[in-house]
């Protein structure tokens, strides 16, 4: 059983973002990028558990991004993945999630894959498209928002769980398949220093963008993509009101008065 996990290199949640001069995306200058992309990390952890607990043969991590995205791959290699593939885009490329999906699918198609894992959405654009699109492009079932999975290699079925309105759904389905993960069974592991050092020696393949585009031509359907017209940051918040007080009782009294009379929420 071969497992592939797709991750995205995203801006660190604590980085202060500015709009780029193009007005279409953030200005990457001075932004710290990380793989600490909650759902992707969960997908990576789950992929590694498939290897450790369910006897999967290998885990390969793939990303589409500029050269700096190699960091995200190294991180997952340090967590324990065996091999990595970088589909390298120019530094200023701004990819639509459907374009990303086609590039990924084109390359994944040429690699052994029984289970393809993705986070349910990326921490930056939060599009949540790649999982389903990969399923369609690869001609595989895709299971979304999964919280738990266990494969049975002989029957080639997956037992899965996911949250639904008011409860939890237990279901199964065949694989090869694409799974988009909401969360894993365990917290994503932190790579240990010896594993970081070992990861230096693991193979990382770079696929030039043109090669990935050529591979994507064999996929069903025609390339389609949305176009970003403009990107704006939320306006700074205003309207906060500071309550001056001497005692906690006075603070509570003033707050209740404001909530009732001004905000009219009580």
């Amino acid at each position, binding site marked *: 059983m071969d497992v592939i996990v797709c991750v995205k290199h995203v801006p660190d949640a604590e980085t202060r973002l500015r709009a780029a001069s193009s007005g279409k995306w953030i200005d990457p200058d001075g932004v710290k990028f*990380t793989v600490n992309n909650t759902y992707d990390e969960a997908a990576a952890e789950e992929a590694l558990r498939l290897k450790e607990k369910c006897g999967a043969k290998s885990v390969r991590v793939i990303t589409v991004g500029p050269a700096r995205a*190699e*960091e995200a791959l*190294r*991180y997952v290699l*340090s967590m324990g993945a065996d091999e990595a593939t970088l589909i390298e885009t120019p530094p200023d490329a701004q990819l639509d999630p459907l374009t990303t999906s086609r590039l990924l699918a084109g390359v994944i198609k040429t690699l052994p894959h029984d289970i393809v894992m993705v986070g349910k959405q990326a921490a930056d654009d939060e599009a949540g498209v790649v999982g389903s699109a990969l399923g369609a492009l690869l001609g595989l079932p895709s299971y979304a928002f999964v919280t738990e999975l266990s494969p049975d290699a002989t029957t080639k079925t997956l037992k899965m769980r996911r949250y639904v309105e008011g409860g939890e759904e237990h279901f199964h389905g065949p694989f090869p398949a694409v799974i988009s993960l909401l969360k894993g069974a365990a917290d994503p592991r*932190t*790579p*240990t*220093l*010896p*594993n*970081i*050092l070992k*990861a*230096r020696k693991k193979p990382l393949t770079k696929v030039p963008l043109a090669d990935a585009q050529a591979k994507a031509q064999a996929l069903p359907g025609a390339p389609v993509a949305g176009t970003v017209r403009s990107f704006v940051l939320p306006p700074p918040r205003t309207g906060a009101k500071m309550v001056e007080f001497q005692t906690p009782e006075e603070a509570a009294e003033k707050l209740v008065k404001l909530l009732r009379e001004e905000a009219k929420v009580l």
Partner: protein
Amino acid sequence: MPIGFELTPDQKELQTLASKFAREEMAPRAPECDKKALFPEDIYRRAFDLGLMNLNVPTEYGGSGLALLDQCIITEELASACGGMTTSILANCLAIQPINLGGSPEQKERLLKPFCSSYHLASFGLTEPSGGSDAAALKTRAERRGNHYVLNGQKCFITNAPQASLFTIFATVDPAKRDKGICAFVVPRDTPGLSIGKEEDKMGQRASSTATVIMEDVKVPLENMLGKEGEGFRIAMQTLDSTRTPIGALAVGIARAALEQASKYSLQRTSFGKKIAEHQSIAAKIANMTIELDASRLLTWRAAWLVDQGHRASLESSIAKCFSSDAAMRICDEAIQIFGGYGYMRDYPVEKYLRDAKLCQIYEGANEIQRQVIAREFLKRFA
């Protein structure tokens, strides 16, 4: 290798690991450990599990085998969360370095391998109640009797002593011989006659433990002596030559945390109708702190880089340790000043930085001794 200031992808990854551990696991525990002088053994155990503990031990003996520059990068991250915890984590490197430098392959196999195979702490025992700076004047006696030595004496201010399972102890066969009489021994904690005195109640770095080690007729077999009789002093000095630079990095970490806190506060706090950062004298403080922090880090990296290139770096490592720890004191002091009255309060983080930073001027060679080394090494060029 040419000079470069950009970290390699590998170094960035080590930095990310250390910074994540520092932020998520060390920092939340730091205030309580400081207040109650708790020794957070679970944190140290976790540092070991992540491979952040025996950084200077070669991989064949179970350590991480990192270059000194890599060690400094990690140390800065850890210290930005808690200076005391970082001292206890680094104390293993200090205690083990004599074995790295003076041990035979057989001794490394026998002593280092089991030590590094699971979580253990070690202590470095050089300083004595009668004086630390003049290490050649140490009084702990080592008497040869057949195929072992018998140790008698006391070591004081020994980091991790209450929890350590292994000690490197420096003792003399004849005090009159000064440095020529000193020997280095590896002594397991359970050796009869070795006991630990009262734990010190410290001003800062209170998450670290410090205590006296008492030796009464402690029998150490010959095969636990590092190097030959009389080589102990050289081993001790070479050890300190290589562990001094990370102390500079530790000071950089503490100072960085202080500067970050002060910068954020100066952009929030207002007086006279503007952010205090907009008052020229506060902005000047931030500028000076930034300059000193940058210089400290670069001096530390340079000293580490020289060692990694195989050069002798007594002068540069003394400069790095001395400047960084003095600068850390100035930076932490200014951070308190920027916080005004709140800076003086224990519920705010900055006063701890000052207390923690102070130790960096004292241990691993007090700064007066570093200046003596710096002047001596530099003046050689003109003599």
